[in-house]
């Protein structure tokens, strides 16, 4: 414990000295989240400095090895860092699909050259990645994807179309599932390709969602030339990488709620509805809220337990599916409750007031949580098959 205490003291001192005051404010707008990349637009010098300082220390990716731009911290040290950041309400310096999704897969499946090329730039937030998975005809049945990569000797020629590509219009590089063998069984003809979105033949088109926002794009590949060294893993082994990466994506989506940074529904309800004789003024909603918070609390404890068990080498199988399924259903429940708490004020869409329409947009955005990254139903299928070993699942 002594070493960890020393680490905590040093970390606390460093954060105090290096985390700008502006970066200790709650995230109020989408722009407050820094995604990095070639075309990054910082909200101000504080955001830029915070990313630069954390990136230089490898603390954007505390547990990655130092030689790849990470912090080289143990799980315990990373926990200390996270708790010290929470203590001063420090914002995360960098939001990144490179960190959450590609990085872990690169560490496991990438060759040395690929790791050295990509990981440090992800850690420092220099390159922003997007994920080329779903296609118009391949959603829940992802393995039926048809985007092709033809072997042209010294390069692959990529043709096809992806959909639901998050922030493809803002991304610098894409990690992409492509079919390299159209004669093999559907899971076996898939390969995992990395390429620059600036390559000739790549185009994107945003999709407007029910929330009015366009976080997703359609992405088109028209005779895109990709160098052969950009293939990650062996040809035809892309599905294994895809599944591995999806488990990280699911944990990330499921975990969105567990940071504890947001106000609870009851805190918001107390401000909005007020109190009457020591209880929330709306007793019907109060019952709904407390039942939600019981589940939210139980879920947060489960995330904690799963991490403790992973550390102790115990653990339950197919966890990412459980966390993704339950976490996203909870978040949808939360957003619906917040709409109820706000009443008719929550229906506002556009207006002169600051933040007008945010709540309704947040609610509508949350509906995608249980669809993206594997639907709730697909995740229940996975639990039925891998954990419960039910027949035919």
């Amino acid at each position, binding site marked *: 414990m002594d070493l960890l205490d020393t680490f905590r003291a040093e970390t606390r001192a460093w954060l105090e000295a290096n985390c700008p005051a502006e970066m200790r404010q709650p995230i109020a707008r989408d722009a407050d989240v820094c995604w990095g990349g070639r075309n990054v637009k910082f909200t101000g010098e504080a955001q830029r400095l915070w990313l630069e300082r954390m990136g230089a220390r490898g603390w954007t990716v505390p547990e990655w090895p130092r030689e790849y731009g990470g912090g080289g911290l143990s799980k315990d040290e990373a926990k200390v860092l996270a708790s010290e950041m929470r203590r001063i309400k420090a914002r995360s310096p960098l939001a990144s699909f490179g960190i959450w999704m590609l990085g872990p897969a690169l560490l496991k499946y990438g060759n040395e050259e690929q790791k050295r090329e990509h990981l440090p730039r992800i850690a420092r937030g220099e390159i922003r990645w997007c994920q080329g998975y779903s296609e118009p005809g391949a959603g829940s049945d992802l393995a039926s994807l048809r985007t092709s990569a033809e072997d042209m000797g010294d390069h692959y020629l990529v043709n096809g179309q992806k959909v639901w590509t998050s922030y493809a219009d803002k991304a610098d590089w894409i990690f992409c599932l492509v079919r390299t063998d159209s004669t093999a069984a559907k899971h076996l003809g898939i390969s995992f390709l990395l390429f620059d979105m600036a390559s000739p033949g790549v185009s994107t088109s945003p999709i407007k969602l029910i929330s009015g926002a366009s976080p997703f794009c359609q992405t088109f590949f028209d005779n895109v030339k990709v160098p052969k060294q950009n293939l990650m893993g062996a040809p035809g082994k892309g599905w294994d990488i895809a599944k591995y990466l999806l488990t990280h994506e699911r944990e990330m989506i499921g975990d969105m709620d567990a940071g504890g940074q947001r106000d609870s529904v*009851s805190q918001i*309800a*107390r401000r909005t509805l007020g*109190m009457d004789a*020591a*209880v*929330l003024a709306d007793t019907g909603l*109060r*019952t709904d*809220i*407390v*039942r939600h*918070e*019981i*589940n939210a*609390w*139980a*879920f947060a*404890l*489960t995330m*904690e*337990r799963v991490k*403790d*068990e992973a*550390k*102790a080498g*115990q653990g*339950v199988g197919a966890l990412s599916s*459980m966390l993704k*399924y*339950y976490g996203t259903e909870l978040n949808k429940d939360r957003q619906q409750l917040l709409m109820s708490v706000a009443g008719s004020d929550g229906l506002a869409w556009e207006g002169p007031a600051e933040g007008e329409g945010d709540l309704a947009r947040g609610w509508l955005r949350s509906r995608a949580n249980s669809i993206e990254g594997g639907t709730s*139903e697909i*995740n*229940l*299928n996975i*639990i*039925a098959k891998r*954990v*419960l*070993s*039910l*027949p*035919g*699942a």
Partner: protein
Amino acid sequence: MALTLTDDQKMIRESADGFFRTEAPVSQHRKLRDTADATGFDRATWAKMAEMGFAGVLVPEAHGGAGFGHVAAGLIMEAIGRNLSAAPMLSTAILGTTALVTGGSAEQQARYLPLIAEGKRLFALAADEAARHAPAHVATTATPSGNGFKLNGTKGFVLDGHVADTLIVAARTSGDHDSRDGITLFLVDATSAGIAIERRAMVDSRNAARISFDDVQVDGADVLGAVGEGFGILEKVLDAGRACLAAEMLGVSSESFARTVDYLKQREQFGQKIGSFQALQHRAAHLFCEVELARSTMLRALVALDSCDDRSSQFASLAKAKCGEVAKLATNEAVQMHGGIGMTDDFDIGFFMKRARAAQETFGDIAFHGDRLARMMGY
């Protein structure tokens, strides 16, 4: 404190699992019911539980107990839940011990705790009066008389009340019917003059009694804790009971879930295993998640009690509420997925649903604990 088991706790879990599976399985529960056993549990099994250190799991070593703590007590209760083992574990080993450890004088502790650890004296908590759990609702009175008090009133739902040697009685020495102030706890010999005990057969075949007190004289030395300040002790006793009931309900949930998943893999209809139907797969997978969530709340509540966490009451309410809801879902689904056979008395699965219902009601369901949690969290 981490939500994982230590090696010692894992050993206790294994020994408890093995013990109840062989010594007090569901078949023993069935036999006790079918023979309308007067005691309602097997005294020989209880004696063995004392030898194993289970009866004294919360009794400090200085008083001859095992002093294993609440996580261990919960693991024992979970094994009891899996096997539906009937034993005075909750009433005596959990509630009785906690009352004495929390509120007992040195003399009371020295007198009773070793007897609990040895399995030689049974306790019952005579607190609830209303049918819906409301611990502050105490109409039973204790009026000064001689060198002590006279008790008058009725307690409706006293677990193991018909076999207890000592009753822990909550009575009012001052204040209104629903006030937290003015409640006093008494240690009362169950054979005292003026006590009438009526055994009530419950839906889960466990023991409960309706007990009336008619001018029952108790000595001043038998007050547990301070006069008028019994509610604080009672809350601690109830919280330990709630966390341990949560553990028992988790055992009920996980066992009925396991039996159901097995059944889904065996039963055939339409020429295939019914477990191959997605309509059932998704419900089973959802239930798996719920049982995992329940387990986390239970562990947290027990760990909180062991570490004297100042949020122990919150975690006890959380665990009781969540594990109760999950036990209800798990046993309802178990009966439904077993179909017609699940409705038959010959088949065991119905026992789990009955036990889940009783355990859920005992010391507050989700409506009670949801309200309690919300108040503790300021809304």
